[in-house]
């Protein structure tokens, strides 16, 4: 079997399975094998390549999940948790954020401009987020944005609009770092929205009253490695036992998986998708680097669950699939908000560039072919923004936004990617090299419409 696989040309390295090798193909494959061999290096025929860091390679590195803290059980099991009410409204169409929202956006914008943007390129390269970025994000209260005041957070009403504006402002700095700093808040918000009293009392204090260990890294793990992946039909399974559940499966593109102390994991239970709270110290968890095209600063990993035994109270929300579906929608909304920030970054970057760059004796901005691309970026971005804000404002008022979130996601995926593509094109060859950030935004914007989980508003 393995010999046959070796002789076949296809099925690996991006070659379709049906490909076969002819005699010349075998010869070339043999030469390539030799070229890759250590032998050349040992005899000093080739400069030794630098050892790749853990996060930049996905092959052959596996660790157990971070040891993590012990979360002390508290609260009453079976009792519903505290909930914030939906925002009220006067039914008037209004594009003006509240004063509190505007103040929050101003603070976050400064944070994104002064910390995230300068750190972005190196973080993308290292596939991790610098410690000072993480600690500063705690100072501005990002993890507790969606947690009710009664539980020590800052939300008086459902915070979907504030969350959207914050995610947008962060992504204007950098999308990957935004995901990193928003990841703990996604789990805290999920606990606030769906947690029982026991779950809220057990986990939320770690976010609202951080000990010397700081706020725990946490991660909402919904995606899985699958072609045509449908998040509503996870392959990860949960089986009911006499007391509790056993989980098996693999989650993909899990943000900050290697340092997360608490996961929210999606799994199929009795044919319905359900959310589970999984502490990183639970036996059976393994984490592997899972670097992707973009969003690299978020330290993406694969999380493998092998016979992971969970206690009775580990289900977050309902088991009929409704909580899970809601979680998926609110997560997608957050990804739309991230797309807005990154697309705005593209527009803000190409605008001065095309006015300065000269060709044929004048700035290229004076050419319609260039100027119209910029105009279309501005038009489509504003359309993306309005559709996303509408969905967010519906969520904030406790209304069903299934349709609006789907439309926002579709628009942000399609037009966001087009904006990323045109951003690189407008800079020409300079857009293709890492001296300019547009190539990173191009890679990051491909995540919209693909990524599930990680962030939540």
């Amino acid at each position, binding site marked *: 079997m393995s010999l046959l696989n070796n002789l076949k040309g296809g099925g690996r390295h991006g070659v379709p399975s049906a490909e076969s090798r002819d005699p010349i193909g075998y010869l070339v494959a043999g030469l390539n094998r030799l070229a890759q061999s250590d032998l050349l290096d040992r005899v000093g025929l080739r400069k030794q390549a630098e050892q790749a860091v853990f996060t930049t390679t996905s092959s052959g590195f596996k660790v157990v999940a971070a040891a993590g803290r012990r979360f002390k059980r508290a609260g009453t099991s079976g009792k519903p948790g505290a909930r914030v009410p939906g925002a009220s409204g006067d*039914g008037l169409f*209004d594009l003006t954020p*509240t004063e509190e929202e505007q103040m929050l956006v101003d603070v976050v914008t400064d944070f994104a401009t002064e910390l995230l943007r300068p750190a972005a390129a190196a973080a993308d390269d290292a596939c991790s987020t610098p410690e000072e970025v993480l600690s500063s994000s705690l100072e501005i209260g990002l993890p507790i944005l969606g947690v009710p005041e009664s539980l020590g957070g800052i939300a008086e009403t459902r915070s979907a609009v504030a969350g959207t504006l914050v995610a947008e402002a962060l992504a204007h700095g950098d999308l990957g770092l935004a995901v990193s700093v928003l990841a703990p808040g996604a789990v805290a918000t999920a606990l606030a929205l769906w947690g029982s009293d026991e779950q809220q009392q057990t986990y939320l204090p770690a976010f609202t009253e951080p000990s010397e260990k700081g706020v725990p890294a946490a991660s909402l793990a919904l995606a899985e490695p699958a072609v045509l992946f449908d998040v509503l039909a996870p392959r990860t399974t949960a089986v009911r036992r006499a007391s509790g559940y056993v989980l098996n499966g693999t989650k993909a593109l899990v943000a900050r998986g290697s340092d997360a102390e608490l996961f929210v994991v999606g799994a199929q239970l009795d044919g319905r998708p359900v959310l589970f709270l999984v502490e990183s110290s639970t036996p059976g968890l393994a984490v592997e680097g899972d670097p992707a095209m973009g969003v690299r600063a978020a330290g993406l990993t694969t999380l493998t669950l092998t016979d992971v035994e969970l206690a009775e109270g580990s289900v977050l929300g309902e088991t009929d699939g409704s909580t899970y579906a809601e979680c998926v929608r609110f997560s997608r909304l957050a990804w739309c908000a991230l797309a807005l920030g990154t697309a705005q970054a593209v527009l803000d970057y190409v605008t001065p560039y095309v*006015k300065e760059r000269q060709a044929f004796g004048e700035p290229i*901005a004076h050419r319609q072919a260039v*100027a119209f691309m910029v105009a279309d970026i501005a*038009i*489509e971005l504003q359309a993306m923004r*309005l559709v996303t804000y509408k969905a967010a404002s519906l969520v*904030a008022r406790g209304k069903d936004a299934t349709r609006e979130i789907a439309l926002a996601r579709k628009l942000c995926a399609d037009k966001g990617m087009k904006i990323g593509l045109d951003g690189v094109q407008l800079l020409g060859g300079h857009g293709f090299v890492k001296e300019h950030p547009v190539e990173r935004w191009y890679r990051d914007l491909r995540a919209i419409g693909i990524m599930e989980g990680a962030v939540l508003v």
Partner: protein
Amino acid sequence: MPINLDDPKRFRPLREQVHQVAMNMLRPISRKYDRAEHEYPKELDMLAAMADGLEQSGTSEGAGAAGVRRTDDGSTGNRNGSNLASVMTVAEMCWGDVGLLLSMPRQGLGNSAIASVADDEQQERFKGTWASMAITEPAFGSDSAQVSTTAVKDGDHYVLNGEKIFVTSGERSDAVVVWATLDKSLGRAAIKSFVVPKGTPGLKVERLEQKLGIRASDTAVITFTDCRVPAENLLGSPEVDTKQGFAGAMATFDNTRPIVASMAIGCARAALDLTRDLLEKAGVVVDYDRPAVTQSAAAAKLLQLESDWEGAYLLMLQAAWMADNQKPNSLEASMAKAKAGRVGSDVTLSCVELCSTVGYEEHELLEKWARDSKILDIFEGTQQIQQLIVARRVLGITSAELR
């Protein structure tokens, strides 16, 4: 109050009324006047009388041209006013039929111009007049600074000479608002608009165009030969102020572009609504939660069309909301028209494709909407003109730099 982009609550009953009118009055005669081009849609007289009645009773927030004037009532705080009401109701009427909406008596684009730039005395004098708009000439379209129709002062009259084309409701209207130049050498600043009542000697409707769509609406060629117009029919200031330039005349467009966007929005929604229904009967239902790539190609396409439509719809509401709140909106008005214009074409043409033979046949109205929508990406500023305006604004460059 927090951000809310839902349809304004206070206009929902009005929109529902207009929807009933569109469904029960316009749709039944939609195909009839598409086939009988140039025949006067007499059914609209009753509808227009009803609209006038509503306007006088104050229950309407303006279902058309009347609603584009900026009024500052000194109130602070968020306003949902006549501009939002206009775009919502016009969209609803165009869900019924774009050509018939354009043929609504006393709701012409000339009425928009009067509402936007006329002084109070003129407003009063031209009240109840059905005014069409004559800008385009055989030698120019988008480049409206090229007006070559002349207006020469002669005593207390102006004498107009020239040829105008593409005059919507040019035959049916009571008067024509004509753009003419006082002195071509002075460029844009010398272009003024004049209200010329029908029956004025020298004004002649030469012929009517046969068109791809909006065939219920008559599009006329009108000539002016030594046509004498009272000086008090000049709209705005008679002075040629080269500093102010074109701004006055162009201000009309800031108000009419969201309206034209709303026409595209209404027409496209008609196509989307019917296509969704027909596809459901054929077994295709869009699932908003499942990824588009896991659904049928038809469902994925419908999802894309609806998302584009939603973007255009909200850009339209934004432009109107800004006008209601005294915020300058020429950038947003052009964004709305650019997006709605191209989405209107994409949606209506794609719906024909999705419904295949049924979409192409005249049994349904899908093929008609695909013809009607095209003009909405052309008149009141083409797609490319909107892109020019947006690009100049976003890039901060002049019309001399980006031509």
